[in-house]
């Protein structure tokens, strides 16, 4: 039985009323207006359905999310989280700046900020709403579309806390800023709406790592929205590591907006979750901007992963590169839907997109949809997609050199995804991700 969209959304409307009453009404008036608008949009839109014609959700059914009565946790399990549990997610890095959010709330005790260059602000959003109100107001919900995207609307309706990073003109942040969202609540069906806002100035340089993880066996929903503003000539490296627990649902939307000659690079790793949907939208907002969007997804059992990557080449002389690789085992299902839009007059656009899938099991399913929408003529756009299994002769070669079947397979798969891992320019992170991927592959 599928509840009607009205019943599915009404529990969130009720939750928002409680949330507003619950002491968050000291937020500035405009945020309350924003929430009201967003919840109104959400109740109009309802949860997306996979009905015919809804191309964006063609292969992913969010029925399980719409049907479960997700609500904010009553008692966030903060106290139980020790340093050792945390280490799994922080990689034991002591030098990285770190903001930790547990069950949706900022955790001061677990967070850590070393010396930052002058003017650079890294703080939680609830605090920024008070101290940096003008800047936050200018950008918050200004880029991620909540009027047409139901999950973004839902997140925006509950916007209160999250991470806020501001890097002024010319500033270079040497160490990565690690933003960690953890779910620990043992209650069934809790929801959190992580929010990230990154605003970078002219010629600045920033590395952001977003981590999502779960330390609970209970089912939960994590509905994240990140907005990244890349200033003129600025460079933002954005990494996203998703390691939710087995029962988790995750919807993550990232909207990047690039200024003139700005560069945005994004590398995402999806290893966890039962049902995961990532929307990565990049707006090439001015001439000379470029982006590199790479990703790896490793799924097994009945995991479902859906990556939607949209690059909007709104201006001329913009370049994009995209490489996604997936390894599918068990009865897992992966979706890759990459859209490249080249607007009229956006001449000299150079766009390449690639998606490759390795099927390790007969029950796994891959659905790929690379799409071009091109309205300018002087462009070079290419895409490639491939699906297959491990090459028999290569496996045989490794076996003949004495490797066990499992080892041979692991080695080949590791080599397959290594192409993406190699594109991580942050050295310690590359090493950590490499170890993480190897460990995950051994479990496959």
């Amino acid at each position, binding site marked *: 039985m599928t509840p009607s969209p009205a019943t599915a959304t009404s529990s969130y409307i009720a939750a928002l009323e409680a949330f507003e009453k619950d002491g968050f009404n000291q937020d500035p008036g405009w945020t309350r207006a924003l929430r009201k608008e967003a919840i109104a949009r959400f109740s109009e839109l309802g949860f997306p359905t996979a009905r*015919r*014609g809804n*191309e964006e959700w063609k292969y992913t059914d969010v029925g399980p999310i719409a049907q479960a009565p997700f609500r904010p946790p009553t008692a966030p399990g903060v106290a139980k989280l020790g340093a050792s549990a945390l280490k799994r997610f922080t990689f034991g890095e002591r030098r990285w700046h770190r903001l930790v959010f547990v069950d949706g709330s900022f955790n001061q005790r677990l967070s850590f900020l070393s010396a930052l260059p002058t003017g650079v602000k890294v703080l939680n959003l609830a605090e920024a709403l008070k101290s940096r109100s003008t800047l936050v107001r200018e950008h918050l919900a200004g880029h991620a579309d909540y009027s047409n995207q139901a999950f973004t609307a839902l997140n925006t309706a509950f916007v209160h806390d999250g991470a806020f990073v501001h890097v002024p003109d010319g500033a270079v942040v040497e160490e990565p800023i690690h933003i960690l969202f953890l779910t620990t609540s043992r209650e069934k069906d809790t929801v959190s709406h992580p929010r990230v806002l990154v605003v970078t100035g002219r010629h600045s340089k920033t590395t952001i790592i977003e981590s999502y993880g779960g330390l609970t066996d209970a089912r939960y929903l994590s509905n994240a929205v990140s907005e990244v503003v890349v200033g003129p000539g600025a460079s933002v490296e954005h990494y996203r590591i998703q390691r939710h627990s087995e029962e988790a649902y995750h919807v993550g939307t990232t909207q990047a907006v690039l200024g003139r000659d700005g560069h945005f690079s994004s590398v995402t790793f999806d290893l966890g979750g039962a049902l995961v949907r990532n929307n990565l939208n990049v707006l090439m907002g001015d001439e000379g901007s470029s982006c590199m969007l790479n990703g790896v997804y490793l799924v097994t059992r009945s995991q479902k992963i859906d990556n939607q990557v949209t690059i909007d080449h709104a201006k001329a002389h913009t370049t994009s590169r995209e490489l996604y690789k997936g390894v599918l085992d068990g009865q897992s299902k992966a979706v890759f839907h990459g859209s490249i839009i080249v607007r*009229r*007059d956006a*001449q000299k656009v150079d766009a390449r997109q690639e998606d490759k*899938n390795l*099927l*390790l*099991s*007969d*029950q*796994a*399913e*891959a*659905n*790929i*949809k*690379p*799409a*071009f*929408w*091109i*309205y*300018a*003529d*002087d*462009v*070079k*756009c*290419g*895409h*490639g*997609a*491939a*699906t*297959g*299994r491990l090459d028999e002769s290569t496996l045989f070669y490794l076996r003949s050199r004495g490797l066990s079947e499992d080892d041979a397979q692991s080695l080949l798969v590791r080599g397959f995804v290594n192409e993406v891992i190699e594109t991580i320019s942050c050295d310690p992170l590359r090493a950590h991700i490499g170890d993480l991927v190897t460990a995950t592959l051994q479990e496959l």
Partner: protein
Amino acid sequence: MTTANKEVNTIASQGYKYGFVTDIEADVAPRGLNEDTVRWISAKKSEPDFMLQWRLKAFRYWEKLLQGQETPSWANVHYPPIDYQNMIYYSAPKTKEKLESLDQVDPELLRTYEKLGIPLEEQKRLAGVAVDAIFDSVSIATTFREELAKHGIVFCPFSEALQEHPELVQKYLGSVVPYSDNFYAALNAAVFSDGSFCYIPKGVRCPLELTTYFRINTAETGQFERTLIIADEGSYVSYLEGCSAPMRDENQLHAAVVELITHDNAEIKYSTIQNWYPGNEEGKGGIYNFVTKRGKCQGKNSKISWTQVETGSAITWKYPSVILQGDNSVGEFYSVALTKGYQQADTGTKMTHIGKNTRSKIISKAISAGHGNNTYRGLVKVMPKADNARNFTQCDSLLIGDQCGAHTTPYVEVRNSTAQLEHEAFTSRVDEDMLFYCNQRGLSTEDAQSLIINGFCKEVFQKLPFEFAVEATRLLELNLEGAVG
């Protein structure tokens, strides 16, 4: 940019040379569509009862879709809603008696086909091609009947097949494209008036290229023809269709259905040169070409190959597909689609791998000029039991001018780990370096461009029967003449 605009203008202003109207008396159905129209058409054709019942079922299904406003809206084409009641569903040149031979065909009609470059008389003499010509709604003449009959091949108008081979029609009609397949297939099933029927018996290699030529003549008519080709075990046939229509300001609807069936070890090669009237340079008028084409490789080791050259129509909505059911069966799709002026094309293919060791290949070349918009839409689907399925897809687009659009939306759905699929697509304009190279070897820019475009399409043209490959090259050249500033 100025040169580019000049290009656009010259391409857009290329004329359509098949746009004349033949003044001929016609027998037309009353305007509009209801159950009576369907009965009227069926009675006109003295059809067996199973046919009428099938048509009525289709009509009721279509009506339900229309009322539920379930007209297909997913394609990347834009047009005002079609008023299905303000259209004529049947128009036939008036004939006194059933035609015995080509000599009895109205000379006016024969002249029309000559103008179109299909001299039936001559082709009757020149060996190689057997033609079935369809004018508005009915089949006018089928040549080479006797020659084909010697081999046991049935090649005749659909209405005749219903009289002479009702058991074959009943067995296969709707087995690949059921009336409930989509909106236009349902409409076609309800009102289709004629088309070609072809049956190649076991082990026969059809000695001639079979050809059907379609022509829409009467104003405000829709043309709904249905083609059914059955290749029995071990047989082979190569089939070609061509089409054209007069220039009119109103849009005309063409909703055809083509069904192909191959049994064990059989092969069908189906080629189309589609040159319906594309509308004038402001995008007024032209044919809406909403066509459902699908082949089923039912038997083992069978093969179906689609080759299409799409240069006409205001809107093309067409996805020749192959269901690869038999083990080791092969599906192929080769396409060149050109849109200029305000033409819109949303075309591609669907390869459904069901049997083991099935292979498919898709080569699509799209050329957009003027304000044209060209979309490749394709699906490659590998079902769980299709072990060792193999697909290669390449869909390239060429852009001429900054007002046109080229879009690619391929879908790949894989449910078997032994499948190996590759997809490549590239979109760009004619490469400056190539043009420069040709220029410095003494070729004019126009010749160079033509050469490059021809090279771009070569892989597809090579798949056409020889005579038509020449025609297709000429057609493309004509359409792009003066495309350089």
